[in-house]
């Protein structure tokens, strides 16, 4: 049974802006839960709250028996939460090192053991490296392992981020716009990849996405945000025909659409 991720009546204010207004969301284990909404609806803010990065103004967030609003983010990672970012964050490291970071919480060696390179630390590092190579193989990054991550093409960088999140072997995976900025072909590849990963393991996925086609083909459940509020929640098909949803998208002069960053 997977860890449960749930937010109840969450409000987040930035000064006068209410980025989230009384938002409740419950992610059922094992599914793919899409969060959609126009620009500025509060999707990324919701992810930042779920992953413990933003404090809430009010409301409760629970992940696997942890009170998210009181736990620092690294604790949530240990409990099985991993995420990617809308704006890629990789740092000046090689692809291999970037992905290895994901395995941080699965390895143990501290300052002293690392400085001395004890046999234990070396064995641990080797195992971590192997699983990273394995992941890189699966995501088509094997040839780029020793290149500086930020120098890769955009689509590859997105995949490095995904690989890093997967390296953490999460039970719940938060993906903030995994195909934004990709061309049609890359998008299809990524969609397929996510479907495969989901089918293979029992990773729960929460997905922010503007691409309705992708949402409809992947998601098992869908929550729609607009101006920080949940305006619809249900199956993707139900949501796609919900009048409020159509109005929200038309109101912001976008039908459910494709987005470039």
């Amino acid at each position: 049974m997977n860890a449960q991720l749930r937010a109840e009546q969450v409000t987040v204010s930035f000064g006068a802006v209410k980025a989230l207004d009384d938002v409740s969301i419950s992610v059922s284990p094992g599914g793919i839960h899409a969060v959609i909404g126009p620009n500025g609806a509060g999707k990324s803010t919701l992810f930042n709250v779920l992953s413990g990065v933003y404090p809430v103004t009010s409301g409760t967030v629970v992940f696997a028996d942890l009170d998210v609003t009181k736990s620092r983010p690294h604790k949530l990672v240990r409990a099985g939460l991993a995420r990617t970012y809308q704006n890629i964050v990789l740092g000046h490291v090689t692809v291999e090192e970037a992905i290895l970071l994901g395995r941080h919480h699965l390895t143990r060696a501290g300052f002293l053991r690392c400085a001395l390179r004890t046999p234990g630390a070396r064995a641990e590092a080797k195992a971590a490296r192997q699983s990273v190579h394995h992941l890189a193989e699966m995501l088509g990054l094997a040839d780029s392992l020793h290149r500086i991550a930020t120098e890769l093409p955009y689509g590859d960088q997105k995949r490095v981020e995904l690989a890093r999140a997967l390296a953490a072997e999460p039970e719940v995976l938060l993906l903030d716009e995994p195909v934004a900025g990709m061309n049609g072909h890359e998008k299809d590849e990524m969609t397929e990849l996510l479907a495969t990963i989901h089918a293979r393991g029992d990773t729960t996925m929460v997905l922010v996405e503007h691409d309705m086609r992708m949402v409809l083909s992947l998601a098992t459940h869908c929550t729609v945000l607009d101006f920080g509020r949940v305006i619809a929640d249900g199956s993707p098909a139900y949501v796609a025909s919900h009048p409020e949803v159509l109005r929200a998208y038309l109101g912001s002069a976008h039908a459910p659409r494709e987005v470039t960053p």
Partner: protein
Amino acid sequence: MSHLTSLLLNGLSTGAVYALIALGLVLIYKCSQVVSFTHGTLVLLGAYLVGTMDDASGFIVALLIAVPVAAGFAGSINLTLLSRRAGAPPVSLAILTIGIDLVVLSVLTQQLGSNVLNISHPWGETRWDLGVASMSANRGIALLMVAAVAVSLYLIFTRSPWGLAMRAVSEDTEAAALMGLSRTTITTLSWATAGALACIAGMFMAGPPTPGVTTTVAVVALRAFPALIIGGLDSLRGAIVGGLLIGVAESLAAGYQHELQFMGSGFAEIVPFLLMLGVLVARPSGLFGSREMTRV
């Protein structure tokens, strides 16, 4: 009682000078996320400029030349060096300003040698007798100056177009671009303003009751950093409060040094730094600084 009053008054007036320096630091930080370690030396530079020119041209003319020159120099530091690395990590930018500081300070050290350069302020050694206490006119004028600067900065920030643009830049680059001002223009203006403030601060700092212009000025000016941190890196109000607080604390510690003998001689000089550590432990972003959005 009058001992305490005079300590407070002198503390406020010293603090006023720190506040002038810290205000410049805040302006720079707000616009460009740079903490300028060049600033102590800019204070020295200002004092040096006034000190070298005032014999020939008189104090007022010297000041009228020195302030724009210092402003221009500070602005050009930003224009030619820092703006090239706009957006780099704050630590890298701070290190860059340390490098600039080393060069400028070496030049000034070389120029000054071991001489003491005197500034002949028109108010000289005059002391103002305020009934309960007296203070040097030099520091009294500094105090008035800070009040004037605070009011004008407030007006500039809330009324004038470039003040608004400056605020826009510190909050959002795009908004400023819409107003037709480039980021570089704004940051350079903030550096220039800070340079002018540093020059004025240096002019006061190298006057009574302290001796003239020596390289010590650059070291003493470092006490504006505690002022900056106590107030909060990005708060103009904080810089003024922090500066005054530091000045008063230092003055009290010096005034009661006999009672504080057990803390060692020269304790007053480190009081600003102790105060800063205390504030940081209690409030990592200072008294008025904006908090970090994220928690990690």
